[in-house]
């Protein structure tokens, strides 16, 4: 069997020739032209589409700024006459970039580093204005006749033509991508500047409010003398002592009796557990012997009313330690330190011709630093309120925690360990102000010491960093004072530094993400 051969049939070709001949004979010339045009289009169109696709595949748009301008120019021919001109930010002079050692008096300098890099100038000089460009009426100058055209009476079409052309020029040139650059960047930086000023002043206000508050000491919510009556909700304004009085009333009338009620079942359950565990698997509850439950219940019975005493003594000890330190300095010095930095910043950023003369990077940095400081500053004010709120909460929870001491242990973190956790939190909370005042004292001492040895240089970047460190320490140290882990605090500092990178990427200050 031979393989079939696929080839054009000669009879088919003959039929096509005959078809064309018939068509020539039968159709009028117009229709012939129409058909030919149609056939040409049907052949050329796919070729164009394929070519365009291939072009697109070879070099896809990459979103370059120049591409935006090129696209605009295609649709707006007037713009094309202008896009060779440098942007209106002009032929600004390039200043050398300098990196050099800066003051950091807490560290001893070994070598002064300086790197100076003069910039290269890439800018073109301005081109001569073209049609509709910078030359204005000079465009009408006739160099052959060496004169401008003579004036004539204005026709009705003149203003209409000027207006129409004027709008088109304005839109095509003024709205072109390259015209957007300076305004856009200036707008972004203007927003950054506004945010920097607002946040810096906000942080100063927060510090000014917070420092006197913290040196006064915490209100002793467990002291009967601190409570002043019970008040009622109908009063528009009530003194703080009323709220304390209400908390104390709740303590006596509700939480103490509840604790006593909780004590009994706990003691019974513990006793049963100890008796049962004499036969198998004695755990830590059995360490006190067969009467351990009774002993713990007795201790808990004393602990329940003693919680008020523990709370009161803790706050008093914390306050007395705070006062001892607070007597050594004036908090005004820290406010002055922070304010000096802000005033220096404002002096550097004093608008010239309505613009901040500082480099963009400084504006961004200041904005980020301001936002960080403000969040930390107000965070501290909120923490001062937390201290009071938590003191009241812990006072109320104290009897319950003490009652649970008579309950069995070894149920995770429940029952017996609750009381020691309560003591831990009471001690930590009462010392919050002490740690805050201590940190303030450290920084005041530092300023005095540097002033004494003649190395205090206020308003430097180092001092701005010290201010951030000061606020971060205030936010971290009081909550884990006995776990001295600088690595943990690095996390806090890096979190704050992340805000700087967010600000630099434009997430604050108006730029796109």
């Amino acid at each position, binding site marked *: 069997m031979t393989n079939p051969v696929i080839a054009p049939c000669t009879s088919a070709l003959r039929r096509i020739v005959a078809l064309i001949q*018939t068509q020539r004979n039968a159709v009028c010339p117009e229709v012939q032209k129409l058909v030919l045009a149609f056939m040409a289009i049907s052949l050329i169109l796919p070729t164009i589409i394929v070519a365009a696709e291939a072009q697109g595949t070879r070099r896809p748009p990459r979103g*370059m700024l120049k591409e935006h301008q090129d696209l605009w120019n295609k649709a707006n021919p007037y713009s094309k006459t202008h896009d060779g001109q440098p942007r209106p930010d002009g032929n600004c002079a390039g200043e050398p970039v300098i990196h050099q050692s800066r003051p950091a008096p807490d560290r001893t300098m070994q070598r002064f*580093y300086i790197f100076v890099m003069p910039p290269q100038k*890439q800018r073109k000089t301005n081109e001569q204005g073209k049609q509709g460009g910078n030359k204005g009426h000079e465009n009408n100058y006739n160099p052959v006749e060496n004169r401008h055209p003579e004036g004539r009476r*204005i026709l009705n079409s003149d203003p209409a033509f000027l207006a*129409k052309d004027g709008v088109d020029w304005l839109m095509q040139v003024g*709205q072109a991508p390259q015209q957007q650059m300076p305004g856009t960047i200036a707008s972004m930086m203007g927003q950054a500047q506004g945010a920097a000023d607002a946040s810096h002043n906000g942080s100063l206000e927060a510090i000014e409010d917070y420092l006197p508050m913290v040196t006064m000491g915490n209100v002793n919510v467990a002291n009967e003398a601190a409570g002043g009556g019970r008040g009622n909700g109908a009063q528009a304004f009530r003194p703080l002592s009323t709220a304390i009085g209400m908390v104390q009333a709740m303590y006596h009338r509700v939480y103490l009796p509840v604790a006593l009620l909780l004590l009994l079942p706990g003691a019974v359950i513990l006793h049963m557990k100890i008796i049962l565990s004499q036969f198998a698997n004695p755990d830590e509850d059995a360490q006190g012997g067969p009467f351990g439950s009774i002993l713990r219940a007795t201790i808990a019975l004393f602990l329940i009313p003693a919680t008020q005493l523990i709370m009161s003594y803790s706050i008093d000890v914390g306050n007395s330690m705070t006062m001892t330190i607070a007597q050594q300095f004036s908090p005004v010095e820290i406010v002055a330190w922070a304010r000096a930095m802000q005033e220096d910043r404002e002096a550097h950023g004093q608008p010239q011709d309505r613009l901040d003369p500082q480099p963009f990077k400084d504006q961004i*940095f200041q904005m980020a630093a301001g936002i960080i400081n403000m969040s930390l500053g107000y965070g501290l004010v909120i923490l001062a309120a937390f201290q009071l709120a938590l003191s009241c909460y812990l006072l109320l929870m104290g009897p319950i925690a003490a009652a649970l001491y008579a309950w069995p242990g070894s149920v995770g973190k429940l029952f017996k360990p609750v009381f020691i956790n309560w003591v831990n939190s009471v001690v930590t909370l009462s010392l919050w102000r002490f740690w805050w005042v201590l940190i303030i004292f450290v920084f005041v001492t530092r300023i005095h010491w540097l002033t004494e040895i003649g190395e205090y240089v206020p308003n430097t970047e*180092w001092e701005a960093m010290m201010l951030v460190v000061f606020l971060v320490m205030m936010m971290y140290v009081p909550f884990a004072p006995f776990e001295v882990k600088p690595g943990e605090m690095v996390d806090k500092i890096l979190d704050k530094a992340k805000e700087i990178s967010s600000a630099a990427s434009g997430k604050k200050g108006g730029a*796109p993400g």
Partner: protein
Amino acid sequence: MPIIRNTNQLLNLTNLALAVLTCAFLGATQAQALPFGPMITSTDLRDTARTLQEQQGKDVKRRRLEATAEALCRVPGEATSRQCLNTRFNEMERLAAKMNQPNNAAPAAKAQGQAQATQAGNSAADIARDQSVAAIDYASRFLRNFTTERGNRWNRFRDNVFVPMALLLLLPGAVMAQVRAIISQSNPVVGMVSPIDGIQRSIIAIFLIPGSYLIVNYAVDLANSISYTVSTEYRNLFGSDMYSDAMCAEIRAFSVRYLSENEGSLRVPDPDLSPIHNGIFSPAEGKLWGKLADPCAGLYLVPPNRDDASMPASTIAARTVLYTSNAGMATGWAILCAFQMAFFYYLFFVGPVMAALWVYPVKFMRDAFGNWCEGVLTLCFWNLFWTTTICLLGCFKGTDDTGLFMVTALNFLATGSVKHAFDFAGLVKAAGMKAAELGEKMGKAAAGAK
């Protein structure tokens, strides 16, 4: 036999062929968008910029405004006040309409976004370079040993405020510890301890309170000696200053073009993003850099075909993410240099108090002094971590085009190493997470760049 008998037949055939070709053409163009895209509903099809364009045209009567403008141009005769007024009204209305016309506003907005992203990236690089150079400069300096000057403010306050406070705190602690020791002899419900636990601990604490001074003093000296040793040996071995080399590595990684270094207009050459060196990361860095500057090597290249306006949107997005991340890390590093000193001051003051708490019968207080010692020593070893990182920065300078990727890794190390200290496993894990985070950010930025 003729197939086409008359003109009507031919016309019908032509129409049919035209219809088939039109369908095929439309099908081919639509097919690009439809088959693999999301499901498109009739609402989606209307929610486009083109709809907005049409609607705005209707609202401002764009066609009528254009026709009026044309018609006004054809009004014959000398200028009349009526013509002037009509012209002015038409001019203002056309101007307002064109300004807000979506297809006029959209290209401008795209360019604005691109320009802001470029500027944001450049500012971030400036901050990253500035802060990392400052951080290296700070790290190159010795910690001032503020404890050595007898009678200075630190020692005066420590001796007069914190040591007495510690002694006062010691007494109740010792009593409580001893009471607990006595109780525990009769019933172990409060734990098993030595009968002289309180006395024993208070005697030790009496020595620990003043001894805390020496721990801070020695730690500062140890930190300084570590830095000195590493930097001196670097100089002896390689003949250059370690800190200078590291600073130049940072400058090289984060050099960006300034206003005067860009051409200025948008008529710029196409970019050439090929690398100029053959380092491991050079191909990736070649796509990103706009300027190469290394003052230690006398290198300063600002090629015209790497103008900011020439760079693709993907480059701008990637640069912005890398620069902003480094700005954060470098600023964090510089702040940590300040923090190291501030925390030493704080630890110096609280040392006696922590020593006194060692007597107390509560675990978290008893552990405080051990934690304090650990804190002081860890803080002093920060110098070792930083000096090692700076040494690596110096070693890797010039191995790639800019060294941006290597410097990013080392900047992370500068902050990550002090955070994790000797927990190297944690550091390695955190490095992996950071790299993933950066990759994710770059992906998002690239997706949002167009």
